[in-house]
């Protein structure tokens, strides 16, 4: 029982990270109907930017951990947002109106470019980082097993919830969010109402990239090691989460992220760590076969 509770805590933490990345996939898909395969690599770039910021702040002699983390978060999110903007501007916008596979192919190209760029500029070796938020609380112990809830996990869950709440508010209550939804539902009509659709799409990439960068920071702090390739696996899992939740649906992305995080964690704990990715991707296959619209996705039935 205690062991299962521990897995639940770990799974929710991991699920939050996947959920934050999945939001970016689902938003971009919603608005221009393409899978942004470079999104996982934006997450990776965000993790590297975080590491650079933390090392830099350390060299400047900033010792306050909360201050360092907030500065790091803003730095990583800001620069990654620029990356997201540039990726859309360079690789996707010129192909708008082209055949459907074209932006998909250039997305894969962009993903490789980002990976190689980081590999060359930062080195291919794994980068370790000492733990910044040590300690935690012991919730209960029974059968000689102590359930730990670390401060790190609390910080990840709370930060994610705050970001998701802010993002939901943005989408549902603000003029920008309304424009985003209008573009998602009918891009041509949005233009006819005076909405600058290119700008709205750019902002969608910018916001998605910033959220992914925060996920990158969390990943770095939680696991303590990163390399230029982490974006691929995390990206594909977050994509799986978005599909599982119903691609295009925001709550679906978060729900899917949680589901993937929990499945992966419980599978590792009770069956085999080596096959945890197989478990996660089997879910993708099963969902695609039996529930193509996902948990919260909609079948496009509308009155015409």
């Amino acid at each position, binding site marked *: 029982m205690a062991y299962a509770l521990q897995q639940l805590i770990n799974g929710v933490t991991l699920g939050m990270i996947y959920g934050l990345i999945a939001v970016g996939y689902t938003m971009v898909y919603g608005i221009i109907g393409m899978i942004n395969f470079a999104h996982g690599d934006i997450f990776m770039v965000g993790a590297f930017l975080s590491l650079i910021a933390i090392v830099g702040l350390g060299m400047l002699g900033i010792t306050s951990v909360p201050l360092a983390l907030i500065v790091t978060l803003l730095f990583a999110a800001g620069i990654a947002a620029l990356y997201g903007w540039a990726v859309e501007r360079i690789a996707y916008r010129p192909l708008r109106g082209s055949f459907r596979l074209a932006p998909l192919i250039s997305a894969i190209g962009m993903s490789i470019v980002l990976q190689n760029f980081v590999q060359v500029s930062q080195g291919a070796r794994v980068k370790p980082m000492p733990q910044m938020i040590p300690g935690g609380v012991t919730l209960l112990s029974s059968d000689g097993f102590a359930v730990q809830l670390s401060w790190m996990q609390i910080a990840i869950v709370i930060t994610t919830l705050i970001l998701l709440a802010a993002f939901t508010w943005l989408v549902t209550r603000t003029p920008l969010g309304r424009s985003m939804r209008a573009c998602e539902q*009918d891009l041509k009509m949005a233009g006819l*109402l005076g909405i600058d659709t290119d700008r709205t799409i750019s902002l969608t990439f910018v916001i998605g990239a910033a959220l992914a960068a925060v996920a990158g920071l969390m990943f770095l702090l939680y696991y303590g090691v990163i390399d230029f390739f982490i974006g691929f696996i995390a990206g594909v899992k977050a994509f799986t989460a978005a599909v599982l939740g119903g691609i295009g649906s925001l709550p679906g992305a978060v729900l899917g992220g949680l589901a993937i995080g929990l499945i992966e964690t419980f599978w590792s704990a009770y069956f085999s760590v080596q096959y945890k990715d197989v478990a996660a991707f089997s879910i993708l296959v099963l969902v695609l076969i039996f529930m193509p619209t996902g948990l919260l996705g909609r079948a496009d039935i509308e009155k015409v």
Partner: protein
Amino acid sequence: MTALLSLSGVTAFYGAIQALKGVELNVNPGEIVTLIGANGAGKSTLMMTICGNPRARDGRIVYDGADITRVPTHEIMRQGIAQSPEGRRIFPRMSVYENLLMGAHGRDGGEAAETMEQVFALFPRLKERTAQRGGTLSGGEQQMLAIGRALMSRPRLLLLDEPSLGLAPLVVRQIFGAIRDLNRSTGLTVLLVEQNAFQALRLAHRGYVLVNGAITMAGAAADLLARPEIRAAYLEGGH
């Protein structure tokens, strides 16, 4: 009188297919002008080309004295042109209220609230359904919403594409009546595309006939109504 909107020699293409072949058309301030023609003649393409999507390949489109031929769509729509497009294109997963707000995009909130009251006065049905999702409205209500949304930007020129399509005659009368009232009370200029040529010519001051992407006839609506070739092609058995 200088025209509010004038097209000269406008051509447009969809891929390799030429949809408009040198269209000449003028709309004067305060007029209702109708464009009639068969299915596939290019009427909706013409409406969309005025808005820059697709863009005119040759020719000039002048609105209120300014050349808008190469202006981006969203900027054209901020200069006092609004379109209620073919197929209505309501945002299906937004409420009626939000759909209307989208029409007032980039405008001051107080002004939008005031304009919305005017739209509700014109189409009281919409007021009863503000919280309902656009996609769940009936066809007639969706058409009212599409026109109401276009009016939310307080346009000088309303492009109205097939407002009668698929609607019951009673609803069509209601909508056409609303357009006539708007034109008379506020001087709103309207370019109306219709397959229902009889109703359209009775509402409009002037009319144009579009055949295969080119204007073949133009004149006062009453004169067009009386012409035998128009009666034969668009009126008899048509409405």
